[in-house]
């Protein structure tokens, strides 16, 4: 213990002090810390609004409206009838950003979930079992990391491209490595803890040790990684769509809307400004929330 650590005062209330009211749980303390992080709160609110925009708005601006072409109205700037203007074939940009939001966000979330599942399984196995398993899995992970993600995305999209489910699969399969490394690091250190040895001495089976003992204790970095994974996935979808290999029109995504605006950057800026702004807002907000979560969930940080 450093000289400074040894003088920090005891803070926990011992239940033998006549207090029956439980002191704050981990969650409550974490929530408190999160609340004090202004950017994180801003990010959370923005995200909530974005979700309402995309999913709530989607009930009004349905997919039909988004795909309804009216070439007489093509490329018209924002007006009361079309608040965000229309695109090259006369579809309402506002409606398309809403529907596109639904698709982009859903892709982001689902790909992130897939990443997390794969990353946790591989990272946990590598970290917990160590030895040959660890070496093999880590070499594989590193090999995947070396390949430029964008290149991988493009190649796979070329081979399979277009279908939303395949896109999610590709996104998940190309970015689980970051999560795996984090999870492996957590497992490597946590498995040396005495409560793991205690569980073994009781006879707890390995499966339970991994999922009930160690995993709950490594949630903090996983949650943070998961949050950022959503942002990464949304951006990745935008990239491949921008290159024309993502979800194909008429289905709208923010990414393919950008692609469609390529030739009209100066003449019809509303084609890229709105989807671009939405992507920006979403990714920024997720990053702020991720920052806030990292501070809130790290028990060692003393920013109270």
């Amino acid at each position: 213990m450093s000289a400074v650590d040894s003088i920090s005062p005891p803070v926990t209330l011992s239940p033998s002090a006549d207090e029956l009211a439980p002191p704050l749980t981990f969650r409550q303390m974490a929530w408190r810390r999160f609340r004090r992080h202004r950017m994180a709160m801003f990010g959370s609110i923005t995200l909530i609004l974005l979700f309402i925009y995309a999913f709530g708005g989607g009930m009004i601006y349905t997919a039909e409206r988004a795909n309804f072409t009216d070439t007489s109205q093509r490329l018209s700037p924002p007006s009361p009838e079309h608040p965000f203007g229309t695109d090259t074939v006369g579809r309402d940009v506002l409606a398309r950003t809403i529907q596109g939001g639904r698709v982009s966000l859903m892709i982001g979330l689902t790909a992130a979930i897939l990443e997390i599942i794969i990353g946790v399984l591989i990272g946990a196995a590598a970290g917990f079992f160590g030895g040959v398993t660890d070496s093999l899995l880590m070499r594989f992970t590193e090999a995947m990391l070396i390949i430029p993600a964008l290149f991988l995305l493009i190649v796979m999209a070329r081979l399979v491209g277009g279908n939303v489910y395949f896109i999610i699969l590709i996104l998940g399969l190309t970015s689980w490595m970051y999560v795996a490394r984090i999870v492996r690091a957590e497992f490597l250190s946590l498995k040396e803890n005495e409560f793991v040895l205690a569980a073994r001495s009781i006879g707890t089976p390995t499966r339970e040790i991994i999922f009930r003992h160690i995993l709950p204790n490594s949630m903090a970095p996983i949650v943070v990684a998961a949050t950022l994974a959503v942002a990464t996935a949304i951006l990745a979808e935008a990239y491949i769509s921008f290159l024309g290999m993502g979800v194909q029109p008429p289905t709208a995504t923010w990414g393919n809307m950008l692609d469609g605006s390529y030739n009209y950057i100066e003449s019809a800026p509303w084609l890229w400004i709105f989807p671009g702004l939405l992507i920006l807002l979403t990714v920024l907000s997720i990053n702020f929330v991720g920052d806030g979560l990292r501070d809130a969930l790290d028990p060692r940080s003393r920013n109270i």
Partner: protein
Amino acid sequence: MIDNPALSSINQALADNGDTRPLVRVIDLKKHFPIRQGIVFQKTTGQVRAVDGISFEIDRGETLGLVGESGCGKSTAGRTLLGLYPATTGESYIAGQHVQTAKGEEWMLIRRQAQMIFQDPFASLNPRWTVNAIIGEPLRVHNLIESDTGRVERVKELMALVGLDDRYINRFPHEFSGGQRQRIGIARALASDPLFLVCDEPISALDVSIQAQVVNLLEDLQARLGLTYLFIAHDLSMVRHICDRVAVMYLGVIVEMSPKDELYEEPLHPYTQALLSAVPVPDPKQARKRKRIVLEGDVPSPINPPPGCRFHTRCPIAQPHCATHEPEWREIQPQHWVACHEVEPKFRS
């Protein structure tokens, strides 16, 4: 062992069956840890000989103390004898069951009958689990009680047994003080109705005023439940207080073992003598009168223990042959075992 042996039912059954074997037997147990170097292909460049051949027995109801300084291998010995670390060579038996070859059902039986209490009251409890989950885990893992409510009842009983208020059954470890957390660990160890408990420095991390509480608790539990203890510690005063027999370890081997008063009043091995003389005594007049044997130098590394008798590099009475011949582990007097060249001759006649 308090003079009130209330044997638990299993103990009684074993005794009735004429099973008079000691509850725990350890025969030349060794545990070496390989030192690996290399990035891709790891080569073993040496061994840490943490436990290098120890043998002893513990009778039912007895408390054997295992003492030594840091690096002597006492913690490793406790874990290896329980089977938590695979032994390099040698054997241990718990209630007649061979630990190193136990699998499946036999393994689970050992995991029920033998438990461990850990040193760090914070690290040995999962911080995300409630007290209920922690203490109830053995009940769940071994299917001892099927229903959730049944388990909660039993957890409350165990909490009462160790002196914890059962109103706090759904709290988390960080809400308790060190002494209370240690009690939680003890309750967990008792959940499966064990016969044998390895106490690995159970009080070292606690304040002095709390140590006495926990030690008294351990004694009470032993009397009530007929438990057998291996008490691993470095606090020689506490070991004298609670144990019946004591074994002294140095660099992976036991150098002396005997009933406690004999060991403390007439230590035969020079290391035991030095160790005892270095223990501070809370009595200024005594402290002034004492003759301290202050050993020179540091404890050698368990990677390359000195040849011959491991202690010869620091031994005040070392002779030339101590550097070449490892002394034999001999029962010099009834129940009193020593490994030292210089001690034997005095007793031969």
